[in-house]
């Protein structure tokens, strides 16, 4: 117990220092996932490998060879992490951005419609929220529809949006963006309604004593209060918009975009292509969310809301 009084000895243990930060635990978790992944790859790819040996009439294959063979199949059931890494490297760094085989090209296609849909969705969400907090009629008439809209599975409605818009001559970026909009307006609308309604009673009373009108109360009180809510819901909306863009590429049999890569990968059993598209999608979503987080930090700093 008395050893507690010698607190500085803690810092002599480098591992303790590592574990006390956020980097340490994250590294441990990542290593654990990669380890589990390799075990999964080996065991899931073994049946096919044994089949191959049998057909080649090879009986006494040493375990080490089996191991390395399961990790280097062309169309593995579960590709190993290093295979995906190589595939991603080959389809990004080693391909021209304009090439149809470049993952960056495909990401760009998906990203542009996700961003467009996100912008429209965020704008729509904010406008809906403003309407809802200022009018009981709007709240009563819109809120049920907004909620109901999200109970319809996106996979069911995406093909219809694409087909209908195509029929009226709208094709390309916009139909996909509409699906992103459909998914991203909801978290923004809900978050903004909450945020715009969050001012304390005393803060509202203060505005009342100044006889501030609705517009002044909105700009000088409600909106600043809602800013943290807006950023939180934009992060959710951004991730949803990306999902929407990918889903939007599936029903049309699109030839470009991450969704198209997923689709053609699954047609031809190209698991490496599927997984690298998945990892890329996760990476893009993570980067966008991190970017919004950065803007949030700067904005809140400017508003004196961070200490």
């Amino acid at each position, binding site marked *: 117990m008395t050893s507690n009084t010698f607190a500085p000895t803690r810092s002599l243990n480098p591992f303790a220092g590592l574990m006390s930060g956020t980097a340490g635990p994250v590294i441990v978790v990542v290593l654990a996932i990669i380890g589990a992944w390799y075990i999964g790859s080996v065991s899931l790819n073994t049946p096919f490998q044994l089949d191959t040996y049998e057909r080649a009439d090879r009986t006494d294959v040493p375990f080490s060879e089996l191991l390395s063979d399961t990790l280097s199949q062309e169309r593995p059931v579960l590709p190993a992490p290093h295979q995906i890494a190589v595939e991603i490297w080959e389809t990004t760094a080693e391909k021209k951005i304009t090439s149809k085989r470049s993952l960056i090209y495909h990401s760009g296609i998906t990203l542009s419609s996700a961003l467009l849909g996100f912008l429209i969705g965020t704008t729509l969400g904010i406008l809906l929220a403003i309407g809802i907090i200022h009018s009981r009629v709007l709240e009563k008439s819109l809120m049920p529809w907004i909620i109901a809209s999200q109970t319809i599975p996106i996979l069911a409605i995406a093909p219809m949006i694409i087909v209908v818009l195509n029929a009226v001559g709208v094709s390309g970026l916009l139909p996909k963006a509409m699906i992103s909009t459909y998914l991203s307006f909801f978290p923004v609308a809900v978050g903004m309604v909450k945020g715009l309604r969050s001012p304390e009673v005393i803060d509202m009373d203060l505005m009342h*004593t100044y006889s501030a009108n609705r517009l002044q109360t909105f700009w000088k009180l409600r909106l600043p209060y809602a800013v943290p809510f807006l950023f939180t819901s934009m992060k959710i909306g951004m991730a949803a918009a990306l999902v929407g863009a990918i889903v939007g590429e599936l029903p049309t049999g699109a030839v470009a975009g991450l969704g198209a890569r997923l689709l053609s990968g699954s047609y031809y059993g190209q698991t490496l292509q599927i997984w690298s598209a998945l990892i890329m999608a996760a990476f893009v979503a993570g980067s966008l969310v991190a970017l919004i987080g950065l803007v949030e930090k700067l904005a809140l700093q400017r508003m004196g809301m961070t200490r």
Partner: protein
Amino acid sequence: MTALAGAKDTEMVEKHKSASPDRVIDIEKLSLTFETNDGPVHALSDIDLKIEQGDFVSFIGPSGCGKTTLLRVIADLEKPTAGSITVNGVSPEEARLNRAYGYVFQAAALYSWRTIAGNVALPLEIMGLSRSERQQRVARNLELVNLSGFEKKYPWQLSGGMQQRASIARALAVEPDLLLMDEPFGALDEIVRDHLNEQLLQLWAKTSKTVAFVTHSIPEAVFLSTKIVVLCPRPGRIYDVIESDLPRDRTLDIRESPEFLKIAHRVREGLKAGHSYED
């Protein structure tokens, strides 16, 4: 219900117009009952009160006797359930729309995303004053409450007492003829409180403002006021109204004078008799 109240209001307004041009607040048979889940709470019951231009009126009484509620009724933050009230001869709502008063809440209620200067400037922006006028008023009133040099700080960077002073500067910046102050110095230490009491008294004497002031402190009430209203709870009602005959320009040493002590004694007796010490 509302039509009835409206009719009553007009009637009262007409009566007062012919009454006294210096009457700032006229309250007659005013009651306010909050309907709560635990049944009705009689926050104010049968209040009669007149406040003239230039009065400094203190409200004193134990917690829950309706001091805050009364101030909020004057400010049109609550609607009375019975009786009538006029502010500057018109309904509280109209007075509020005319920006007749400045209100200092019990809590500072500064906006956390605005600097101290930004907070003081808030009502001025809403009033649509020019930038230079706003800057002048902000500087002047921050100086008055000894906060010069803190313009660019955010509220959380200031102590509770400094925040409260900023909120006073914010109310003063509106330059209202009527100041409604709800225990503005309650959170401050003795010395700062004395200083601000003197400042407030000087400001009041200089500008002939009318002040309605809620306090828990007997010396503060007696030192500041021309009229002291002692309230008692359950239901919240007026127990005693004491007109002070202390001279208008006072300094802190007046607190040792026999006249001062006599008034303080009467306030204390009023509080006791209202059974305010039982809780």
